[in-house]
């Protein structure tokens, strides 16, 4: 089966300039496990568009690097 890659507006935005490479706070608390580290940069990003906009990632981030938006379809 052919798969396309579709662009999606994701709810969790990570400010890479603030994200700390050694830190995994957001990844550990996400109930849906949608955040991962980019192995090349060591920065967190939202890999899966499965967000409950519940905010622990944003609240646990020690540098304020994360902003959670309401998913576009609900906004």
């Amino acid at each position: 089966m052919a798969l396309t890659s579709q662009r999606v507006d994701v709810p969790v935005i990570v400010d890479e300039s603030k994200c700390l490479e050694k830190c995994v706070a957001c990844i550990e608390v996400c109930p849906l496990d949608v955040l991962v580290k980019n192995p090349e940069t060591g920065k967190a990003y939202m890999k899966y568009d499965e967000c409950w906009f519940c905010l622990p990632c944003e609240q646990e981030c020690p540098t304020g690097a994360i902003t959670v938006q309401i998913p576009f379809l609900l906004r």
Partner: protein
Amino acid sequence: MHNTDMDPEVAQWVEMLRSPQLDDRLVAVKTLQHLGDEDAIEPLIGVLYNEENPTVQEIAVTTLWEFANPVAIPPLIECLSSPHANVRDEALSALKELVSTNDLMKLLDVLQVGNTYAQLNVLVLLRKIHDAQALPFVLPFFESENPTLREAAVITLRYLNQVVRCEPALALAQDANASVRRATALTLGHLSDAEVVPLLCELLTSDADWQVRRNAAQSLDLLANPAAIAALIAAMGDPEWQVRKFTARALQKTADERALPVLIKALADEYSDVRRDAATALGKLAQAEALPALQQTLNDPDMDVRIFSQRAIDAIQKSLPETSNV
């Protein structure tokens, strides 16, 4: 420095708390929070004293809060006077959960010597302890220059158990600051000094701030004193609907037929809460005169008004002698 049995994983992050790099300290304190290992308590208390970055401090406060170990209470009380709002606020939240009667003396000390932030926060914490021993330490704040402290003190008064009379609080009913008067109006509902009811009546009918008037109505509802009836009748004509609503509620407890005309008029009030609460008050009065007006509100567009009017009608009919039952 720290105990030698410490889990090496924990020890590594504890070590990093002393890194010159802020980023490292942030990661370290965050990781210790997530690991939740109680061996980290002592080093985290160290952070409260030695760390200069307010974010690291705040996370350390949160972490100590999560451990809920009483050894952290005195250092957290010191954080109440921190120059950083985030640290103070987090420490206050933590202490709201952690303080008990055992900490009363420590808190009262801070009330006497702390800065304004600390005093304000301690006044809030005393509401969790409810201990009347705090009263003599709270009273001086009624005369504070700072209206926020006066307001906090008069709110705290309400939470001190067994305090039923407090003459020094009465003067705050005439305070220049509206927030202080609002808080005072609510606190007076819990006091039984002889001057309380006349004071509340005056606030209800004459205060320039409508929230003061509303709060006075709420307190009069609580006190249910028949001496307030004239003021309550007058307040049914208040321009603010919330004042009329809470006055109608007070009239449910202080049933007096002199209120009949204003309550009937209130059945046509613009606000449904007023109509509903007036209907209930009429039910308590048990006067057949109110029946025609209540019959009309059975068609009210608001469900609650219809329900409570019907209940009032039922109550009135039940109280009338059999013969006059239409």
